[in-house]
């Protein structure tokens, strides 16, 4: 952990190479593009938008950064219908109501009013939590493309100034800027305004060499040759234009499965038996069987 002064950007890293080395220590093998983008996000204090297909390690990246920086991960999971009350803050009105009912007789309304709009009755949601924290923080805004346009506007406001105005309490300004990572599966195009404020990183399936390294680091005990075979076959499957291309996690699962079954060689029969680990749709299975001329699974 570097010594970031208060209010400064969270300079977690000293160079792109430093990013590669330190993320590597916690088991995240970053590509040069990823390392550069993460490094720049940390020195420039800008949010980083990571876009790419499901299962290429976008969320893992945030976790890994939080781990190496010794920061806490605050996660905002986006979904359709997410609103300010879930993303930013909300007043705990039930507690407020109790407080009003329990107010001693004769207490002035003004006093009660001042009483119930205090920190005690404030429910902070991820965005506000991340801004108010004084320790190093990684804010993960997951699947930002799932939100509605209004929430995007809210994010815009929060991410450009790192401050939030609560009418009853005043403006809360970030004590130190969190490291912000937004992820998106690109199911819809995020607004230009939001993109302009972020650094952009496209994460794609890794090269076979990198994926092999990932498999070897995640699955101890796997033979080099087997790892090689697994990643090559997975690359071929991704090339087939299947409905749901195998993610990195599925590649790892596959390697683990093969290891557990005690296989050392990935031949047609083995693939056919274990195809369910990487392909999750019946139609994908059919396609893979046909294109790779695999034998039918002996059920």
């Amino acid at each position, binding site marked *: 952990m570097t010594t970031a002064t208060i209010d400064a950007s969270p300079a977690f890293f000293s160079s792109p190479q430093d990013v590669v080395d330190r993320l590597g220590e916690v088991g995240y093998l970053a590509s040069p593009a990823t390392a550069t*983008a993460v490094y*720049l996000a940390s020195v*420039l204090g800008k949010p980083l938008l990571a876009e790419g297909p499901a299962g290429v390690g976008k969320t893992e990246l945030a976790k890994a950064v939080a781990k190496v920086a010794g920061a806490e991960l605050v996660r905002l999971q986006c979904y359709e219908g997410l609103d300010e009350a879930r993303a930013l803050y909300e007043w705990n009105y039930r507690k407020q109501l109790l407080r009003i009912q329990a107010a001693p007789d004769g207490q002035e309304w003004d006093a009660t009013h001042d009483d119930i709009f205090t920190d005690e009755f404030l429910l902070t949601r991820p965005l506000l939590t991340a801004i108010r924290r004084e320790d190093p923080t990684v804010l993960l805004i997951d699947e930002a493309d799932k939100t509605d346009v209004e929430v995007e506007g809210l994010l815009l406001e929060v991410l450009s100034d790192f401050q939030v105005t609560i009418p009853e309490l005043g403006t809360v300004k970030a004590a130190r800027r969190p490291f912000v990572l937004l992820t998106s599966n690109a199911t*819809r195009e995020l607004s*230009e305004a939001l993109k302009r404020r972020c*650094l952009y990183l496209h994460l794609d399936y890794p090269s076979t060499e990198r994926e092999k390294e990932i498999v070897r680091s995640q699955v101890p005990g796997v033979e080099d040759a087997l790892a090689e075979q697994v990643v*090559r076959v997975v690359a071929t499957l991704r090339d087939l234009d299947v*409905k749901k291309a195998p993610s990195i996690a599925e590649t790892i699962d596959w390697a683990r499965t093969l290891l557990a079954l005690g296989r050392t060689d990935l031949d047609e029969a083995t693939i056919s038996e274990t195809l369910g680990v990487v392909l999750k749709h019946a139609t994908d299975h059919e396609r893979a069987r046909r294109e790779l*001329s695999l034998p039918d699974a002996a059920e």
Partner: protein
Amino acid sequence: MALLDRHLGFVTALREAGLLVSVSESLDAVSAVGHIDLAERETLREAYAATLVKRQQHRDAFDTIFDIYFPTAVGDGLAHQLAAEDAEDDDGADGAITEAGDEAPAPGLADAWQQPVDANALRDFREELSDALLAGDETDLGALVQEAVARFGQIQGRRPGSVPGQQSWSRLNVMQRVQPQTLMSGLLAAMLGVGQDRDGLAEQVARTTLRARIARFERMVDAEVRRRVAEELGEERIARSAVRPPLERIDFLSANKDDLAALRREIYPLSRRLATRLVQEQRHGRSGQLDFRRTIRESMQTGGVPMMTMHKPRRPHRTDLVLLCDVSGSVRQFAQFTILLMFALKEQFGRVRAFAFVDDIDEVTDYLQPGQGIGESVMQLTQQARVTWVTGRTHYGRAFEKFVERYPDAVGPKTSLLVLGDARSNYGYLSEEVLAGLADEARHAYWLNPERENLWGTGDSAAFTYRRIVPMVEVRNLSQLSEFVHDLA
């Protein structure tokens, strides 16, 4: 200062190529570059990419321009030394370089165009290339690319404003002489080992790997040729001609094979949205009817005061989607796209019925089974579906009539109707009233027209007639398609 100028030139070139680079992003890029080691070219590339490129579709254009503005080497680079050893077709002088053109040279210079290349040198080179492709080593490949362009890529030709007899570099020359694609079978044999079973999984896997590497080699040759030409001509000129328009602006009617493949990947998410948009009941408020029981239960938390009303979830609305697609020759390219879109919609959305027509109409829903190869389906569709009647020329009027006659129950009050075609009906009758009847019956009706709007109504186009009945949208490229989908909400 020189660096700043280069930065500004680079940003201008990006803007000309269709990337939306704002001033603030350009400033971000400058401060980003200040934080990195400029000697690391790939880091510089990624730093620029992170700050300036906010859409993956623009990445290819970005990389092309980056290679032009921030070249890997100057002059002959490493290849020069190698070529000097041979000293055969190296005439010593570097000469001026003209823009690489794949077009035929000026008359009189025809022999110079196909300079003889030493057959032995070529064979040796192809062997080296095979080894490098087999090993998959990037640095080796990079050196070979430089060598290939220096040795096999030269042409002598004349372009306006250049001195006759100047040297130039051409990608076509390299590819014609080196022919990397023909190395495939040798490479496959080497990778699989002799006597191996030549089809099935192992081959498929090896083929995928090799194909990717050969494509990589070809891309590197492209970049190298551009770099050498840019050195002489100046970056602006070459940047302008080297970059293809980004995918979302490529006209469906002029898309080539690669574009179509890329379009296909892009269409899937769009179709999902299109499908959901068409089905979505407008959501006023959060939910449906008041749920009295839950409201009272919830009110227990607030001492019996019902502070929040609870509602029953709305019943999801089911909508059928009916697609009517013109698959005639005049819109062949668009038809490919139409079929892609039909496919994508079918996968996303179970309740789709698709009909294809030229001058007759047939239901093609069954040909669009998910999981089936798109190529096969198209083949089946064109061979088996009865979409042509006599002339084989588009006849919208007849197609609509036959549609209503044969499938009277296809369109109902829950149906969204989507017509895809250019509305060019070869002067046949139009059956407006039939379409109007369909549009009335359906919940929504839209017409997507792949033709430029200012051509509508010209010649045999009945776009204006049909537009009065069904809202018609110009959808010539991906960005227009996504706009349409966006506006549906």
